[in-house]
């Protein structure tokens, strides 16, 4: 599948934003989030990342001005559900930000935080299911796909929270443990996902797609229907060289997991340089998650390519 930059930016940026929103809501409910400016900055950053992502996702639409219509089909469409969940999450999160901005003393912030956390999980799950529900792409149509989206949002969000709190001089020990665990969990899930897609050669063949060849025969394209690639080939037939993909996969493992896990471990052992180390970890992970997302698309084979020379999909 063609990796569209708008979608890579959208899913990584809003993923990190929802991850941050989730953790800061939980921290607030646990009474571990310092109030005042820090809480406001954190929730503003979360909402800014989410909004930047959502705006970027409308960039690849042919008619962004009609986007309001996309909230209507939540009964059947994960994309529509994602939109509904995203907008619904703005309400408690926005209120929470407002309360923290004016410094009001109200009793129901815990409820708003809980609703924000639930909204964050629901939205990221819907994002994952947009891809996970597509049976035409075997690398996406896996139970692990939404789990990967959730785990990576959680890991990148926890790094952001740790970075912010360390900037505000509030880097508590539990932050190190939280980031470390969420990074390790996300790494394990992503590695399991890669192992799963590598082991799946695809169950559909060009013979099934064309109904030709009969029992034990074969089909190869002779003349293409058009002299140059059409939309279907450009969008669905994008392929990255295997060697190149393997290199990028290693790169994303190093930048998304190895470097941040190393940096966070150092924070735990020597908390003195916490903000510097969290900064390194966050920057590496940002690069890593963008690479991971690019590969998520570039690695994906689409069944329609069986008509264009693919033998299995």
């Amino acid at each position, binding site marked *: 599948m063609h990796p569209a930059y708008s979608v890579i930016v959208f899913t990584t940026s809003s993923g990190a934003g929802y991850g941050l929103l989730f953790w800061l809501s939980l921290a607030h409910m646990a009474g571990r989030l310092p109030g005042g400016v820090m809480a406001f900055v954190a929730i503003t950053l979360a909402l800014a990342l989410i909004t930047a992502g959502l705006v970027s996702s409308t960039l*690849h639409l*042919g008619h962004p001005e009609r986007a309001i219509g996309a909230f209507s089909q939540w009964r059947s469409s994960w994309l529509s559900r994602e939109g509904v969940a995203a907008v619904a999450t703005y309400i408690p999160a926005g209120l929470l930000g407002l309360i923290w901005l004016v410094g009001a003393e109200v009793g129901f912030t815990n409820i708003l935080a809980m609703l924000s956390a639930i909204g964050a999980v629901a939205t990221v799950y819907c994002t994952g299911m947009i891809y996970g529900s597509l*049976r*035409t792409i075997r690398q996406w149509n896996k139970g692990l796909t939404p789990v990967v989206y959730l785990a990576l949002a959680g890991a990148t969000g926890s790094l952001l929270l740790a970075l912010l709190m360390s900037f505000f001089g509030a880097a508590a020990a539990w932050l190190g443990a939280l980031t470390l665990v969420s990074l390790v969990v996300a790494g394990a899930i992503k590695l399991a996902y890669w192992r799963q897609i590598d082991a799946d050669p695809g169950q559909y063949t060009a013979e099934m797609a064309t109904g*030709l060849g009969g029992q034990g025969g074969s089909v190869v394209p002779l003349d293409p*229907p058009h002299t*140059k690639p059409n939309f279907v080939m450009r969008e669905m037939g994008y392929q990255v060289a295997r060697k190149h993909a393997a290199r990028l996969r290693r790169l994303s493992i190093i930048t998304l997991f190895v470097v941040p896990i190393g940096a966070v471990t150092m924070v735990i052992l020597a908390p003195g340089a916490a903000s510097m180390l969290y900064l390194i970890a966050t920057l590496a992970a940002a690069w890593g998650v963008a690479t991971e997302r690019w590969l998520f698309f570039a690695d994906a084979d689409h*069944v329609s390519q069986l008509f264009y020379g693919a033998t299995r999909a």
Partner: protein
Amino acid sequence: MTCLPKKTDKKLGLVIDLDICVGCQACATSCKEWNTSGYSAPLSDHDPYGADPSGAWLNRIHSFEATSAEGLAKTVHFPRSCLHCEEPDCVTVCPTGASYKREEDGIVLVNPDTCIGCKLCSWACPYGAREYDYDDGVMKKCTLCVDRIYNENIPEEDRVPSCVRACPTGARAFGDLGDPNSEVSQSVAERDGFNLLDEFGYKPVNKYLPPRINSVQAAPAVEEPAAPDGSRLEKLFAWADKALSR
């Protein structure tokens, strides 16, 4: 509404005979011509006469070489367009409801006035039948010429999809595949018509008729040209040939 209708009154669709299609592209050309001026028009092209032409077409004609287990090979011309599936996800994934399946006849359409051009439906189609129109910013697909088949302003013999009307060999037929007595259903029954990628489970309405067995023949044995025997006469001709072609 992007939920699928529980059942449709009719199952209008095409039956494509792979045995007699000659790959002339007449159906694709007439489809483009009709649909670039009708429903959801135009079907825009980019760089049509240049080095890198592309554009939205609703019907594409492939050619495959199909080789049987016994090693008999045959060229098969293979028209491919939307199959108006009975249970397609291209409809249910649409966030706006622009992609829908009609309850009255089963035709799958895109509403060009509400489509936001997110392209998700094209991702959900295993047949590569939907093509995005970059100029219009909306998704395009075969409409089964919904603006012809019910059109009382055109002569009755023209009230079939444009591709069916154009095909010079009669390789395309249009009708109600939900009615077992219709001509199309009977030809499917007679000729063992099949579904493309049946295993995928979208239940396409369009059917394909396989190439007939007796039209697949072993290639006639080619007579080997006699090997040069090195005689004087042959040398003389070789010399003359070389001298004359200098």
